[in-house]
């Protein structure tokens, strides 16, 4: 089991990068192969999902421990928790938004095709998973 943890620490960031890339490349494929112009609204879930993944990786894991003394005073734990909370809210809103767009694309014929909607959901999910994977890597020390 120990070996697995070591191996994960070595290749983990690479796997996170691969998943992140896969998410965005699916979206690029959908935009390129779409027969209609994909409006900017459809790009938003992916962009905000990437932002959310960046946000919850920017947290220094030591800061949410119980005996952390910060230069801002004793009760500054709430800042980190607020940051994480906003990151989670943004990521869930993105997921919901991309699923909503998929349903909308599936129902009408005039807008983007179903593949655009599916690629949007895939992009959101894969980007968030990649953020999670990267998070597990640097907390292995």
């Amino acid at each position, binding site marked *: 089991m120990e070996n697995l943890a070591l191996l994960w620490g070595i290749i983990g960031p690479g796997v996170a990068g691969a998943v992140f890339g896969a998410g965005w490349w699916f979206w690029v*494929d959908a935009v390129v192969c779409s027969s209609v112009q994909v409006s900017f609204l459809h790009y938003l879930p992916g962009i905000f999902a990437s932002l959310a993944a960046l946000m919850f990786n920017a947290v220094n894991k030591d800061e949410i421990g119980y005996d952390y003394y910060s230069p801002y005073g004793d009760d500054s734990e709430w800042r980190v928790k607020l940051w994480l909370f906003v990151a989670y809210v943004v990521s869930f809103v993105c997921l919901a938004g991309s699923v909503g767009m998929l349903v909308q694309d599936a129902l009408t014929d005039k807008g983007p095709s179903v593949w655009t909607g599916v690629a949007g959901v895939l992009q959101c999910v894969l980007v968030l998973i990649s953020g999670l994977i990267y998070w597990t890597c640097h907390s292995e020390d």
Partner: protein
Amino acid sequence: MARSMRTCLHSGRLALLAILVSGGIVLQILACALYNNWWPMLTVLMYLILPMPLIFFLGSNSPSMMSNDGDTWVNFTKFLTGASIVGSIAIPSILKHAGVIGWGALTMELSSFLVFGVAILWLIQMNSEDEYSSAF
């Protein structure tokens, strides 16, 4: 094994590695030139990002890449490598899906990527072997 024999083998392996890399480049260019369609050259962008952790960290103390150090920059370059690996598979596939290139160009691109991958893995393995042998 005698010392001269070992250096001969070592330079032989380096030569083979160079042949592999140039083979990969030839495949990449052939994929464009044979079909007179220069779109697949976009993949070269990904090939530039791919060896970044090697370039930055293989020269300095090697253990920093193969160990669990968790230095932020090492992690970030590994992230970029992962993304560029997926990108170099994804760009030809997207071009094929959009109908810009054909099946032949796609297989040539993917085989060029495989050749580069084998070359880089072999380079890493050769480097870690060098560490062990020079420690004696």
